[in-house]
């Protein structure tokens, strides 16, 4: 509820809207959106040009000046809703404004007709009417007095009573707007409105605001950011590929000039009487096989391993000298599969066949994995090599054999560990990531943003070290 929606006199709080906006920017900063003074000035300038009475214009004007990436925009929307909702409610509670049910005469409504109307409106789209619809729905189905007390539960109960579903419902009669299912996006927006209206009612009843809570990581990730959605993962990985590709080129550009080999130039100059006519250059060293990737494909990381495999697939496109292994109880090299199969689906199918080799009991055995890995590639590990392990470091009670891991890390130039679990769960239960972390750099990696952080680390100083 943006300020324009409630006709509030101008003399709200000291500082008026300016102070509110600065407060809003503070909250954005607290959520790691970098809002500079120049951006804030732009926001004020933009607000002078648009009508504040239009909620969408007001929000977009702020968004275009303050949030400058899709990720920032996502956080912006969440903070915007939270901030202006709270600001408006705070005032309302202070002034004891009560809006009431918002709709009288709910008793006389034909409930079935209402269901149809709401579904129809949702089908047609548009944001403006949603708030009224939500109020109507709450008035009709909400039992304001005896809600369950948990807003999320109430929202779902109302949605069910309205018979709103994303899936088609062929049993409904022809012409019913719900028959083909409600667009998912519309449904989500409607639920959001319901939630907000219920919260507002709660504030009105209790006359105070619930404590503000910072955004959790789950709120903040883009829809599709979490690992479940394969298509979304592919989009990010495709982007990653392009970024890796351009980074590589930047490097080449910077290292293009060759170094003059003074000794050989001098020697060649003897032919021309000591005048260095022909310059001799130091030979450019080709980059050696650099990266070894070990990827856990056991069931405990099942959801993450699809993500990891597609990352691996992308890496194979970008680094020519890359060897990859999958492991559960034993390891199995899959480099060739990736090089043969350009198509990710075929590659992952081939790997799941291959993974059978690595699977004996279905539980990861890190000790055995390390020893097999050492046996296979020990001679090829050198200070320019990078080893990357993708796994959750859950040993299933078996010995972690960190001595072997230390030996690998010592032989390789750099060792990274990507853990698909949130940091909160590290070292709980049978997770022994702390033991391994002594020998390598561990990254939390369960959102695409975290993956990007890692790629920065990998392509940044790594290439310099590898030269």
């Amino acid at each position: 509820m943006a300020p324009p929606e409630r006709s509030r006199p101008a003399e709200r709080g000291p500082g008026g809207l300016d102070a509110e906006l600065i407060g809003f920017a503070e909250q954005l900063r607290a959520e790691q959106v970098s809002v500079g003074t120049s951006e804030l000035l732009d926001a004020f300038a933009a607000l002078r040009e648009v009508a504040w009475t239009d909620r969408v214009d007001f929000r977009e004007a702020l968004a275009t000046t303050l949030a400058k990436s899709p990720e920032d925009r996502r956080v912006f929307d969440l903070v915007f809703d939270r901030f202006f909702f709270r600001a408006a409610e705070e005032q309302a509670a202070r002034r004891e404004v009560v809006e009431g049910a918002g709709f009288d005469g709910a008793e006389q409504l034909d409930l079935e007709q209402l269901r149809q109307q709401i579904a129809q409106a949702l089908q047609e789209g548009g944001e403006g009417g949603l708030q009224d619809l939500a109020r109507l729905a709450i008035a009709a189905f909400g039992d304001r007095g005896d809600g369950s007390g948990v807003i999320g539960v109430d929202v779902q109960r109302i949605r069910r009573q309205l018979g709103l579903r994303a899936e088609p419902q062929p049993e409904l009669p022809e012409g019913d707007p719900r028959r083909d299912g409600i667009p998912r996006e519309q449904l989500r927006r409607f639920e959001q409105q319901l939630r907000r209206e219920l919260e507002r009612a709660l504030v009105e009843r209790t006359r105070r605001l619930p404590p503000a809570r910072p955004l959790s990581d789950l709120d903040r990730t883009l829809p599709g950011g979490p690992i479940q959605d394969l298509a979304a993962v592919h989009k990010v990985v495709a982007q990653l590929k392009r970024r890796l590709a351009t980074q590589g080129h930047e490097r080449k550009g910077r290292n293009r000039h060759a170094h003059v080999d003074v000794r050989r130039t001098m020697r060649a100059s003897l032919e021309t009487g000591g005048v260095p006519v022909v310059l001799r250059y130091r030979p450019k060293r080709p980059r050696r096989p650099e990266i070894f990737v070990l990827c856990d494909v056991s069931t405990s990381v099942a959801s993450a391993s699809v993500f990891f495999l597609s990352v691996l697939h992308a890496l194979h496109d970008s680094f020519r000298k890359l060897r990859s292994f999958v492991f559960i109880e034993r390891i199995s090299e899959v480099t060739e599969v990736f090089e043969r199969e350009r198509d990710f689906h075929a590659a992952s199918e081939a790997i799941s066949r291959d993974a059978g080799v690595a699977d004996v009991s279905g539980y990861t055995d890190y000790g055995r994995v390390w020893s097999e890995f050492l046996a296979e590639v020990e001679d090829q590990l050198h200070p320019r090599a990078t080893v990357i392990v993708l796994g959750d470091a859950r040993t299933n009670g078996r010995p972690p054999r960190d001595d072997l891991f230390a030996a690998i890390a010592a032989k390789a130039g750099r060792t990274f560990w990507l853990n698909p679990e949130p940091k909160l769960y590290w070292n709980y239960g049978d997770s022994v990531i702390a033991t391994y972390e002594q020998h390598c750099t561990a990254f939390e990696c369960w959102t695409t943003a975290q993956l990007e952080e890692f790629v920065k680390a990998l392509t940044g100083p790594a290439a310099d070290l590898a030269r």
Partner: protein
Amino acid sequence: MTIEPTSVEQVSEGLRSVGYLPGEATALVSYLATKLGKPVLVEGPAGVGKTELAKALSKYLDRELIRLQCYEGLDEAKALYEWNYRKQLLRIQAEASGTGWEAVQDDIFGEEFLLRRPLLTAIASERPVVLLIDEIDKTDQEFEAMLLELLSDFQISIPELGRFDARTQPVVLLTSNNSRELTEALKRRCLYLWVDYPDAGHELEIVRLHTPELSETVARKLVEIVHEVRELDLKKPPSIAESIDWARALLLLGADDLDGEIFRQTMSVIVKHRTDLELVAARVGVRLGGAAPDGAAGTIPTR
């Protein structure tokens, strides 16, 4: 003469009148760009009409469109200005005898010997222009840094000549496919606009605008299918331009319904990878039904 819009609605109307249907955010940001005189950074997936927006704006505002296509290795000489050294040489030779060095030197670094590239053209133009810097993410960071002076103060410094200030305020659009993170410094100087694929209603409007002769039911079905196809995990999801192309193709074929057979014949308009074609045929084509010529599509295994 050039148009100065005075409200968001005007911009929205104006863009519609030249055949571009803007979303709410797009209209607002375009309006702000003309009002605040700030460059706009437009990001979004390929094929949502980022470049089209610049073209439509130039048409609506009745300003010339100056376009700088970025690519890896683009440098000042191709983007800003270059000295026309051949002409300079000729001048020196022509005046070789008798003229003092000082006089020649003063002469050959004049505006006459300057080759204007897009950015300088935009700055020096007498009439206000729309400047489109396309695919800025393809350039390197050094080039971005060079743009900063232009974007914040609308001026270009040429060491031999001094400073060129913009005679008129250009509307500047930078587009990016987000293939690399742009620098904070650049973003700070720009308004930000994220353009995504339009929702079904909006896209239907767009298709109808470009092919008004196509029957509404076919257009609606077409948009639904395009949306369904975008949901799949494809190498290249269909762009808006491609759905318009498809609508035109259907119109040419005189299709009065979009059934499985027509779909299989024409889907190469929106899907352009072999693997994608298979996937789309298996998922969407089969659902649309209709007699496949030899049952081929039916035998492709669904993955």
